[in-house]
């Protein structure tokens, strides 16, 4: 054992350093987020509760092709269709078992019509399981609730991947040259 090491040992140098650090941290502001009181806004593109999209006329976009149900990894989407007038497909029931959903967003990717989306809403606890069995009506009202106005289209584009630009590259891609330092470093 060298002298320096000996001195460090008997004077508890490393422990004193640790104590200094904890004491300093005591004086720095806490990083706690006081959720439910202070809510953190979900980042744009958050994958939350589902919604069925409506078109401009307020009608359901879904045509009942069943791709989302086929693609869904947790197989939680159930679609029941019948043949209506003019031999059109009519979506009778469109149901999502939310408790089985894994929020991968694959249903959005699968949908060729842009009829389903995930909203930023993530607080939906309840006392019974029935509340999580989303029927067509509930899903459509979700759209009104969370995607009012133009928000729906813009938000929805985020999920509807891949787009053509992903295959070709596009203008204004994120680059290092544009990186600006946000915080001042000590």
């Amino acid at each position, binding site marked *: 054992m060298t002298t320096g090491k000996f001195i460090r040992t008997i004077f508890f140098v490393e*422990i004193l350093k*640790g*104590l200094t650090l904890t004491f300093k941290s005591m004086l*720095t502001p*806490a*990083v*706690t987020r006081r959720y439910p009181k202070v809510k953190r806004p979900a980042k744009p593109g958050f994958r939350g509760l589902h919604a069925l999209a409506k078109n401009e006329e307020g009608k359901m976009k879904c045509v009942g092709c069943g791709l989302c149900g086929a693609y869904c990894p947790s197989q939680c989407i159930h679609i029941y269709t019948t043949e209506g007038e003019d031999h059109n497909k009519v979506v009778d029931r469109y149901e999502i078992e939310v408790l089985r959903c894994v929020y991968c967003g694959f249903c959005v990717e699968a949908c060729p019509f842009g009829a389903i989306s995930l909203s930023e809403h993530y607080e939906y606890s309840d006392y019974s399981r029935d509340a999580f069995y989303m029927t067509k009506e509930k899903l459509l009202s979700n759209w009104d609730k969370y995607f009012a106005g133009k928000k729906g289209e813009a938000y929805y584009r985020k999920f509807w991947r891949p787009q053509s630009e992903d295959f070709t590259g596009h203008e204004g891609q994120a680059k290092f040259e544009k990186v600006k330092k946000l915080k001042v470093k000590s």
Partner: protein
Amino acid sequence: MNEILQSFIGQVSNPWLKLGIDIVIILIKIAIVIAIALLHVAYATYWERKVIGHMQVRLGPIEVGPHGLLQPIADGVKLFFKEDIIPADADKPLFYIAPVIFFISTLTSLSVIPFFNHFVIADINIGLLFLFAMSSLGAYGIVISGWSSNSKYAFLGGLRSASQVISYEIAMGLSLVGVMIMSGSLNLVDIVKAQQQYPTGMYFIPQILGFFVFVVAAFAETNRLPFDLPEAESELVAGYFTEYSGFRFALFFLGEYTGMLIMSSICAVCFLGGWTVPQFIMNALPFLSKLPNIVWVLVFLVKVYAFMFFYYWVRATLPRYRYDQLMAIGWKLLIPLALLNIVITGLAKILIKG
């Protein structure tokens, strides 16, 4: 105040009445001390959570009351109304009595702690010995609780605690022998007064070795990090009180924090000068001697709190020792150091006297 009381008692001639008044006074003292202690213990938990919370860059309790000030009360109420679960195979009488032993023994220790000159429930001349005796008794509570729970984790926790408390009892006793030699007394009030006469005003400077041994042993005696092996939550779930819930758990909890209070008080009394400040400060600032008594009680409390803060601070910083390492430190490091301290102190005393 004490003088007035004494003179009042002196006027009473009937011996029975005198005895009665004495008892009433002691009861009042006990009531005050217990009330202060329990309130203190309740808020010590709050304070600990706050301090450690901020050290860990979080907030600690904050929702109940302003800044979470009512949190300890809420916790207490919750623990009182919680279902009292007793394991089916537990040794019931022992299971009932273990937390009581633990709590009572720590609470009894309070009786000899001098908060101020003669404000002490029992001003006995073997105060320090009494403290050791009581803190050893507390170990029974832990061992019995570990045994009676009939749970393997609790059992291991109880065993660990037994050996830990017994080993560190020796180191702690020896560490205070230096103080006894210097002050020439076992009475805590006398120890404080002797310190006041001493040039540095506090014994922790000449007794630095003893102080170090005492601090480490105090941590181990109260089962606090880095020596909280009896209740090491990552190894033994919750150690000896794994099976306890509700009010019985609360008794253990209160007992632990009262134990911390006792240890901090011993430290303040024996090493930090109790309610006094060093003589040279008194000389430099003469107005200090005119201050009312209550200020000196606060001085004592500040010293106690400072030591409690150190408890929390260390808890927020250090990992936990292993069981065999704890024993090694106790027997191979602390006891020799304490013995060395005694030898040095004794020699110094003889040399200075001679």
